[in-house]
């Protein structure tokens, strides 16, 4: 699978839930490629912008879409990576800001 195929596959599932891909393709495509890199490296699509432990059980919270996405998109209009965003984020009606890390550092084990 390549990033474009992953894009189409996930878009169909996520858009009806209210999560849109960042329309800035210079962000979205490298992030999707990184998800595929992590799938190859780790066996699962760990968040590309977080330090994965390398064991599925220890990384369950950051398997994309991560458990922090809902709160981040609600509060900032974007997830930590800015891969998934709200409609308002893409429309430019909310300010784009850097999303602070919500994952507790204790989750980093290795």
């Amino acid at each position, binding site marked *: 699978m390549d990033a474009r195929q992953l894009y189409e596959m996930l878009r169909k599932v996520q858009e009806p839930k209210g999560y849109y891909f960042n329309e800035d393709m*210079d962000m979205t495509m*490298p992030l999707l490629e*990184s998800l595929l890199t992590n799938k190859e490296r780790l066996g699962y699509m760990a968040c590309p912008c*977080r*330090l994965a432990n390398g064991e599925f059980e220890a990384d369950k919270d950051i398997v994309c879409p991560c458990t922090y996405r809902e709160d981040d998109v609600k509060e900032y209009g974007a997830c930590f*990576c800015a891969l998934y965003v709200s409609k308002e984020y893409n429309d430019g009606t909310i300010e784009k800001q*850097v999303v*602070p*890390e919500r994952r507790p550092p204790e989750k980093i084990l*290795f």
Partner: protein
Amino acid sequence: MPETEAPAKPFDMEAFHMNDIKVYALSTCIHCRNAKKYLDECGVKYECVHVDELTGDERKKIVQEVKEHNPAVSFPTIVIRDKVVVGFHKDQIDEALKED
């Protein structure tokens, strides 16, 4: 993300040495990639560690190092002399580069 624009030399590039700027990054992270690109555009030299590519004791040591600068252990963590910039914030990078 707006297009990256390097600041118009508000600082003395030559005054920065490789050891002055350290970037803790992940090889897969887009914010890390953009931050490094911006530092490149600024013309400064820096040392970059890809923490996700480390294993064992080396990884433990570096994670501890990141924690001391940024307790959230998030990336990029950019240390510019005694200033720490967490995440890709151009304005904060510019500010940190300007200081003596």
